């Protein structure tokens, strides 16, 4: 019993931090429909500010005010005012991409400002490791004590405010129907801003409270906090705050119990403890009913039509031919310079860009075409890479190993797709994220798979007497793969599957009515996408020749989605551009000092913030802009009257305008009477 207690008690402060952030997640989700992953970053910022201020000899209360009461809520308010209040009626991807971008951007900006030196955490009220008293035989430290007491007080206060001020009631009204709430005098946007400020405060508090439990203040610790909080939120079905709190505390305790009772020194014990929240998350996502269907129907939903579906513009023939010729020219020049002109390291860079394009194609297929969010593509790539590596070690020809890697990744994709079928929108993203985390923390650590941080070596392919060992030869091989796969994806896009997926994105009910089997279609999309990612991963392995779990860290999954969404997720060309851009920028930023090492991710993360206005992607938007001008010019030269611009208007932001608001409520129901 004493042993049990000594395992159990240390779990409570962790649980408290999870609970605070979990409550914040649910609050903003209910108030604005955004699942704000950036809370992880806000917790990090608060913890950093707090520790810096305290080390600069500020009084703890002043540091607390600045870090928790000012900084994090200010960030939250800015996010709500500048970004998320425009996404209320948008689809899950539009809500997710900016949040992901912020999760990546905020820590990297912080790092650029404060540098990379290690920061030691400071304790808030009581000294973290000092033992204040014993419960039975279990010592209770200051950190545990203060975290628990503060959480209980804050949550208690919050519950009181919710009850007495009517804020809780207003919040519920806004969630049910923002329009209806406004008609009855509730200021919906102010209520949602309040929710953002409050939950940011919780996130900041969670960060400051959790920080002393780790040796240093570093961003990854707060991502772990974020994931545990997501799991707690899922236990509460994204709606019940008491359940979130209970789930969070239970999670914190269970983690410590696992650590205490599992035999130490095995991968299962070292891996399962960090992986535990993801397992819980996956189970909760699949088991909770409320997560399967979006919140109850807003009776006035029709008044806020969702943003238009993206549609690639149809161009004048001359312009279309011209732009195609230009693309071919650019691609040809890239290939030519890679093969003939560029010095060694750049040859490698372009090959890497080609490989990344293949991985990014998997996102184009699943997310752009299929409308499904996956935050686990790096794990599928890793599965392909490690399969290829293991097979190559057992004397399977490398090319065959690459294909078999794709096959195994495809099988994994199908396995992940099955539970994902019951979910929609953001929940699918979270499920795939938990898969990626499980892969990074457990699956890829075994000697028979990724062999942990030591990793595997994978040779370059050799077919008969043709060796692809040299970088030049290998580039041609990778390029062939890319051309084949990109061609296949394009054919699928224009073929039956692509058109059925487009219909499904437009309306699930409508597609079921015409006879589309939604489940089969989604499994196909998932499987195909995982296969492509797996082949990409395997080629990456052969390119690098030595790989480890760090090459397929779950964080890459997040970055990849941000990169592709920022460049252009709806077209095959977008994946290719994203791959090359990413590799080139990676090379350009690789010489910077470590302080600016995250500049690369930051560039794309900032681009992702424009996703709300330009879901077609920054590069795609730029291209559309240029082509629009080209069309005008062509018309001018022909001295022709501008004719009906055709559907091209639907694609670009500016022409969205005249189709958009209130004018077309009938598209989304609420017609007649």
């Amino acid at each position, binding site marked *: 019993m004493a042993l049990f207690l000594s395992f159990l008690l240390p779990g409570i402060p962790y649980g408290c931090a999870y609970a605070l952030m979990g409550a914040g997640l649910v609050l903003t989700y209910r108030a604005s429909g955004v699942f704000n992953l950036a809370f992880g970053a806000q917790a990090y910022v608060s913890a950093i500010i707090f520790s810096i201020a305290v080390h600069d000899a500020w009084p703890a209360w002043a540091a607390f005010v600045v870090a928790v009461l000012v900084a994090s809520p200010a960030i939250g308010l800015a996010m709500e005012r500048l970004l998320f209040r425009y996404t209320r009626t948008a689809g899950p991807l539009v809500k997710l991409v900016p949040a992901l971008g912020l999760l990546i951007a905020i820590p990297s900006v912080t790092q650029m400002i404060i540098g990379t030196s290690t920061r030691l955490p400071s304790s808030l009220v009581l000294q973290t490791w000092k033992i204040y008293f014993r419960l039975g035989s279990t010592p209770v430290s200051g950190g545990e004590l203060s975290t628990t007491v503060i959480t209980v007080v804050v949550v208690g206060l919050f519950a009181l405010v919710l009850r007495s001020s009517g804020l809780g009631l207003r919040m519920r009204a806004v969630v049910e129907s923002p329009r209806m709430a406004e008609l009855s005098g509730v200021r919906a946007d102010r209520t949602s801003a309040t929710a953002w400020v409050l939950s940011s405060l919780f996130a900041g508090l969670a960060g400051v409270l959790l920080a002393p439990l780790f040796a240093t203040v570093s961003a990854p610790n707060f991502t772990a906090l974020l994931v545990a909080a997501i799991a707690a939120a899922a236990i509460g079905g994204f709606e019940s705050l008491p359940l979130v709190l209970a789930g969070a505390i239970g999670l914190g305790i269970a983690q410590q119990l696992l650590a205490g009772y599992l035999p130490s020194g095995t991968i299962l014990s070292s891996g399962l403890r960090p992986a535990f929240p993801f397992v819980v998350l996956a189970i909760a996502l699949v088991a909770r009913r409320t997560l399967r269907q979006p919140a109850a129907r807003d009776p006035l939903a029709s008044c806020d039509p969702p943003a*238009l*579906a993206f549609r690639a513009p149809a161009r004048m023939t001359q312009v279309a031919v011209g732009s195609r010729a230009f693309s071919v020219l650019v691609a040809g020049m890239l290939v030519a310079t890679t093969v003939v002109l560029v010095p060694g390291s750049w040859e490698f860079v372009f090959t890497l860009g080609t490989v990344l394009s293949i991985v990014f194609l998997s996102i184009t297929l699943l997310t752009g075409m299929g409308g499904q969010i996956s935050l686990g593509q790096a794990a599928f790539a890793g599965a392909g890479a490690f399969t290829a590596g293991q097979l190559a070690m057992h004397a399977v020809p490398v090319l065959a190993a690459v294909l078999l890697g794709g096959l195994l990744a495809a099988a994994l994709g199908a396995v992940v797709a099955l539970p994902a079928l019951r979910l929609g929108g953001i929940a699918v993203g979270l499920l795939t994220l938990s898969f990626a985390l499980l892969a990074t923390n457990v699956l890829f650590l075994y000697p028979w798979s990724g062999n942990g941080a030591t990793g595997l070596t994978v040779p370059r392919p050799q077919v008969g007497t043709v060796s692809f060992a040299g970088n030049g030869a290998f580039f041609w091989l990778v390029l062939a793969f890319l051309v084949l796969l990109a061609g296949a994806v394009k054919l*699928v896009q224009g073929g039956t599957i*692509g058109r059925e997926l487009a*219909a499904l994105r*437009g309306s699930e009910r409508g597609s079921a009515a*015409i006879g589309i089997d939604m489940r089969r279609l989604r499994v196909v999309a998932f499987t195909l996408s995982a296969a492509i990612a797996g082949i990409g991963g395997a080629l990456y392995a052969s390119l690098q020749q030595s790989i480890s779990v760090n090459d397929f860290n779950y964080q890459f999954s997040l970055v990849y989605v941000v990169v592709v969404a920022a460049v252009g997720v709806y077209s095959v060309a977008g994946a290719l551009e994203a791959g090359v851009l990413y590799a080139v920028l990676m090379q350009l930023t690789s010489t910077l000092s470590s302080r600016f090492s995250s500049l690369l991710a930051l560039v794309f993360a900032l681009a992702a913030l424009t996703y709300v206005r330009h879901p077609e992607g920054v590069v795609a938007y730029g291209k559309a802009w240029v082509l629009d001008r080209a069309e005008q010019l062509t018309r001018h030269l022909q001295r022709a009257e501008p004719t009906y611009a055709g559907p091209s208007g639907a694609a670009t932001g500016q022409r969205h305008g005249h189709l958009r608001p209130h004018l077309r409520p009938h598209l*989304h129901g609420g017609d007649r009477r």
Partner: protein
Amino acid sequence: MLETAGLTKRFGRVVALSDVSLRIDAGGSVGVVGPNGAGKTTLFDCILGVVEPDAGWIAFDGRRIDRLPTFRRGLLGIGRTFQRLELFGGMTPREHLLVTERVRGGGGRLWKDVVGLGRPAPRERREADDLLELVGLGDVADVPVEALNLGRCRLVELARALVGPPKLLMLDEPSSGLDDGERTILVSVLGRVRRERGVAVALVEHDLDLVTAVVDRLVVLDVGRVIADGPVDAVLADGAVRRAYLGSGR
């Protein structure tokens, strides 16, 4: 051809359907009328499997379909339009019809897509063109549906439901938002598909003139119950129907 018996559906304490039995013969036509909230849309949703009834059964072509998923019921030959439009955002009317042609014609295979055989076949293109002409959408065939007005959107849904053609066409308030010209098209299209292709029609509609112009039989729902079922004239003369439905409105 379509038969339901004892269909019952509750939403919490609201009884949307109670013990509804309905028959539609091949090539027949039935108007389903009733005041707002009578359960008309819920009846359609139950038949298509969008909503699962609490009790009762549904048979189509002599075969129970209440355990089938929605898409299978569609493939058996039921075409449907929605009161709240369910169009494929971002797609043009032509694309709506092409994808429906493909799905109704047995769908496609992944490998066919990958080797380039997935694009619309000439026959599918012809049939889509014919349908677009039939419902008068030829001039906007390549405009995304977002840019069309409500009446046009309803006609796109009608055309989409006509692909196949289906054995049974179920229309939920197809005339709301239509102008006079579009209404004329609607009536003539329904007449034509009934005559030329033998499509049975179930029509939910508030506009009684339109209903009587299209159907032979009328079913009146009130608070989830069938209060009258018979030839149009007989039902319209029924005292209970007048009190429940027409009395207030006309």
